[in-house]
């Protein structure tokens, strides 16, 4: 189902991921979060931006295990655990945060 972001209509796949990664803008995450009744904080944006940088460098959305380890290294040990990440993204840090970041569903996520 397409989503409306700042007056633009953006295509998504059947699971709500952006069809075209280049369509992404920060407003995409805001609109998607609103649909999930979630208010995005700086902590959410740290993860979303991290995922976008990871994709930029490696051309893949990382698996949750890899994300957790890398977040711990980059943002501090207190954030590199699944409790913290699931606290921010209750539908799963891999799936939900990648969707907000405009990335495809993580490789290996079913």
């Amino acid at each position, binding site marked *: 189902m397409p989503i409306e972001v700042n007056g633009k209509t953006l295509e998504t796949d059947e699971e709500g991921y952006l069809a075209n990664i280049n369509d992404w803008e920060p407003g995409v995450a805001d609109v998607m979060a609103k649909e999930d009744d979630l208010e995005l904080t700086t902590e959410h944006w740290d993860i979303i931006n991290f995922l976008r940088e990871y994709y930029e460098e*490696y*051309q*893949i959305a*990382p*698996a949750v295990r*890899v994300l957790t380890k890398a977040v711990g290294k980059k943002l501090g040990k207190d954030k590199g655990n699944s409790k913290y990440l699931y606290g921010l993204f209750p539908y799963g840090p891999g799936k939900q945060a990648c969707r907000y970041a405009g990335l495809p569903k993580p490789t*290996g996520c079913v």
Partner: protein
Amino acid sequence: MSQVKKFMYVNRRPPYGTIYAWESLEVVLIGAAFEQDVSLAFVDDGVFQLIKGQDTSGIGMKNFSPTYAALGDYDVTKIYVEKESLDERGLSLDDLQHLTYEDEDEDWAEKDSIQLVSRAELATIFAGQDVLFNF
């Protein structure tokens, strides 16, 4: 508890033109979640998959070569490249990406993932695997 098996993915084809190279890489990344003993081999034209400085803008395909650098994050740390295959194509290790991983047991020291092996050595490594996937 299931037993850890030795899985090896053997890459024999050039990176673009067929979907084999990318499919292999995806299967490796998915398989890495199952905590098996995973290794990769690059032989024949498969060595071209690791060439550095790839540019696919002229062929309209995604350049997935940066993804090989993520293998270390997925704890895939054994990447064998066959020396004869490089020699036959006028290539050397310097033409390939420098792939590394961080060794958890040695205070996250950065180590090389790629090991150059001869055809004979690789045959021995093949013989020691439980499962071989050919791509």
